[in-house]
């Protein structure tokens, strides 16, 4: 520990920290533009100048390592004068267009010029003007406003792993540009909008939409993937205007993916706002009482084995739980399922479907083996962590399949499952590597779990890791990479049926009533089934429905979600469902009341406590069943990674215009062959 003085306050800091960090520890705020905690140090804005004893000139505190016995002063007239000088130079070429700038109200330059700016300009010369750059459908550029902090350049190179941004020219002519004049080839690109301390890079879909002080801010979580990134939803009236990341060092650090950020305009389109009934192939508006009545008579006149229910990929846990209760208690059948494919899952223990090493654990891993997963598209934020780990420790990364550019180098194998068998049988060179690795990580994608031999591969991989003593108190090398926000929560709640294969039964038209809750991924030929669809958006599920119950999206109701690591987090209500739509749990509760004259739960609180209790009981009674079947037959299969189209992976994204534009931009790149 180093001891130093900041404004005569004694502070102790760890070695390797900078003067700026030491000042923050002493509670002294240092103005800065180029410095950012998560990026490398550039030291080029000079705003963080402080006075150091025995130094004739002020020093840039962000770039100066803290040392023993330093005496730092941040409140002297020299510092004040230096910062004023820097600010005057920054403002010399900065346009005075704050009234028409989207950054206004949350602009670092605006805020800091309130403290250090001079009220008049001595700059009589012509101001610099820089042509706008084309950075795709997400980022609007106004490069005249740029103060050359190079945060965006460092972000693209370091975090996103797409070195496409750069600072060209020198002096007054310096410009930040992509040589491509195209959108950045990254799913994290829009984070540069948050990083930009001025209005040079602003959000294109949000352009001239609102001022920050007009918006209602709700801290909640994201459900575009299974990561559970922490976000802030900004709403104006009931409209979701934008989504911003909030810091959670254990999950998303400071970043969110472009889909998380920009799919929110899908919440305004294709919405189901009133109950519908299909008469002669046409949907007609109906009242809640009418639809409940029809559902009641249908359910009463159908034998319970002929009723089944499917829960979708964005459904919160309360809804899944009350749906399960509805089936168990009201319909009295256990024909419910949350998977949309025949993926293998062993729910006897939670560890069998979680990302056990945890997202933070990626940074400690010394060997990462990807089996049937493409983290870049399946879990973008997690992929950024793998890249961080690679940059920090040069982690060795091996993938069974060639996944294209993952933003870090990796060795790819042949994509055949017999290679996994070789690893299990200790005949592959990777077996030795896994054995000698201290903290290996095996990341199993959903594509592998969909294979016919998934059970064999999964259980034997687990046995293999067990044999090599890789499971310990503080490390669990087995990781399942779930893709959807609801997946883990549904497994925790036991919303699945391992006794019969409901998907096969559905495809062979064995059911008479199908109840879909936000489930749009089922591929089946509808014959005489009566389909009830409850959800927020009019998509595939609603299309084939006979009755539509309008539900709420994730920003319109409180709801728990469990992320892929098994962390349970709550999404909060930021706005209201449109029209007559109701919160999802409420619909099921009312339907149950209509049928039996008895509500399943009196209120949301009772539902929540019942659900959390259930989860607690489930974890307590977990026992590892002996699922060993290493004697079963093994056939080699060609493992193909099937991922949903990144920009259209769920109903919200599918309804989003911005996502369509992103997809078009990507297609354009591919067709002109300039990619890569």
């Amino acid at each position, binding site marked *: 520990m180093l001891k130093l003085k900041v404004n005569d306050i004694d502070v102790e800091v760890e070695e390797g920290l900078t003067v700026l960090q030491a000042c923050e520890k002493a509670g002294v705020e240092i103005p800065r533009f180029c410095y950012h905690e998560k990026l490398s140090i550039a030291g080029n804005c000079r705003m963080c100048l402080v006075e150091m004893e025995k130094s004739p000139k002020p020093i840039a505190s962000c770039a100066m390592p803290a040392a023993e016995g330093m005496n730092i002063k941040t409140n002297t007239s020299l510092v004040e004068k230096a910062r004023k000088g820097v600010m005057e130079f920054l403002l010399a070429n900065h346009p005075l267009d704050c009234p028409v700038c989207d950054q206004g109200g949350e602009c670092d330059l605006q805020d800091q010029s309130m403290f250090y700016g001079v009220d008049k300009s001595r700059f009589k010369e012509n101001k610099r003007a820089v042509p706008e750059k084309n950075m795709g459908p997400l980022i609007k550029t106004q490069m005249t406003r740029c103060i050359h902090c190079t945060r965006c350049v460092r972000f693209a190179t370091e975090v996103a792993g797409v*070195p496409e*941004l*750069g*600072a*060209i*020219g*020198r002096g007054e*002519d310096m410009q930040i540009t*992509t*040589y491509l004049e195209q959108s950045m080839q990254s799913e994290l690109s829009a984070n540069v909008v948050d990083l930009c301390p001025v209005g040079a890079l602003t959000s294109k879909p949000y352009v001239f939409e609102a001022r920050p002080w007009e918006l209602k801010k709700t801290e909640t979580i994201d459900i575009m993937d299974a990561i559970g990134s922490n976000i802030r939803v900004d709403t104006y009236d009931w409209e979701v205007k934008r989504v911003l990341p909030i810091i959670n060092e254990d999950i998303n650090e400071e970043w969110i993916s472009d889909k998380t950020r920009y799919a929110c305009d899908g919440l305004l389109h294709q919405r189901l706002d009133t109950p519908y009934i299909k008469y002669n192939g046409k949907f007609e508006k109906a009242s809640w009482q009418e639809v409940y009545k029809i559902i009641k008579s249908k359910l009463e006149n159908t034998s319970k084995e002929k009723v089944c229910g499917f829960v979708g990929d964005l459904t919160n846990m309360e809804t899944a739980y009350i749906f399960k209760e509805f089936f168990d208690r009201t319909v009295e059948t256990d024909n419910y399922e949350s998977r949309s494919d025949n993926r293998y899952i062993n729910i006897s223990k939670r560890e069998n479907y979680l990302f056990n090493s945890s997202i933070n654990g990626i940074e400690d891993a010394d060997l990462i083996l990807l089996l049937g997963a493409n983290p870049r598209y399946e879990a973008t934020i997690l992929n950024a962590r793998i890249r961080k780990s690679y940059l920090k420790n040069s982690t060795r990364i091996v993938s069974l399949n060639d996944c294209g550019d993952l933003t870090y180098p990796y060795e790819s194998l042949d994509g055949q499952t017999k290679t996994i068998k070789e690893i299990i049988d200790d005949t592959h060179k990777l077996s030795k590597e896994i054995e000698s690795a201290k903290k290996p990580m095996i990341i199993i994608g959903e594509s592998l779990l969909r294979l016919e031999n998934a059970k064999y591969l999964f259980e034997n991989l687990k046995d293999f890791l067990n044999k090599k003593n890789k499971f310990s108190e503080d490390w669990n090398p087995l990781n399942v990479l779930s893709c959807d926000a609801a997946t883990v929560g549904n497994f925790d709640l036991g919303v699945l049926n391992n006794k019969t294969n409901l998907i096969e039964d559905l495809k062979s038209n064995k059911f008479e009533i199908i109840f879909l809750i936000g489930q749009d991924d089922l591929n089946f030929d509808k014959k005489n089934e009566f389909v009830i669809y409850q959800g927020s958006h009019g998509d595939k599920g609603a299309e084939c429905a006979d009755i539509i119950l309008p539900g709420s999206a994730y920003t319109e109701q409180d709801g728990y979600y469990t992320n892929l690591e098994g962390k349970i987090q709550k999404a909060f209500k930021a706005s209201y469902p449109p029209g007559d739509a109701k919160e999802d749990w409420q619909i099921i509760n009312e339907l149950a009341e209509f049928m039996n004259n008895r509500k399943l739960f009196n209120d949301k609180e009772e539902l929540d406590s019942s659900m959390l209790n259930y989860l607690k009981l489930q974890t307590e009674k977990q026992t590892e069943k002996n699922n060993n079947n290493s004697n079963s037959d093994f056939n080699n299969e060609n493992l193909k990674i099937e991922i949903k189209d990144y920009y259209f992976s769920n109903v919200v994204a599918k309804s989003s215009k911005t996502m369509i534009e992103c997809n078009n931009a990507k297609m354009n790149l591919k067709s002109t062959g300039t990619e890569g």
Partner: protein
Amino acid sequence: MSLRKPAKDQPESFEFNASSLEAANNIVAKYPEGKQQSAVMALLYIAQRQNNNWIPLAAMKYIAKFLDMPYIKVYEVATFYTMYNLSPVGKYFVQVCTTTPCMIRGANKLVEACKEKISENECELSSDKSCSWMEVECLGACVTAPMMQINDDYFEDLDKEKMSEILDKILNGETPKPGSYRGRVNNEPENNRKTLTDLKNA
């Protein structure tokens, strides 16, 4: 000086020839393994040498691949340093120093001569495409100001007439003599001044 933009007409491809490749490999070998990117400036210069004194974008891409670094990083370096020419220059490339000492000694007259003899604007090829000129910052020969550089040679102690003569010569394909045009050897003082205290002839 404004931002130098790459030329509009760019060759499709670029590759080092045998001698450039050898020179490039020699330079890369000077750096420890994994730090080969440090050779980028030298390699850009080699490329400029090979390609008639200017660097096409294809060469930057080639060098980026050669050194296993992002193209944008090479592009940044090439646009930062003014001595890399990003658009074609004449076979005789005239660089007139216009920084303060030369300016005081009449560099603007040299610029006038260039405008009359070569082309109206800087960085523009003369009518016979053999020559181009540009204003540059200090070339470090202030003692013999005003001066200019043609390709690798300095021409010093100039005035407008002498400048015009030199330009006429190069436009006719002759090779003018480099060095001082007032008969000085290197940077020796004029009028037989031998010491700093010897002020009588200053």
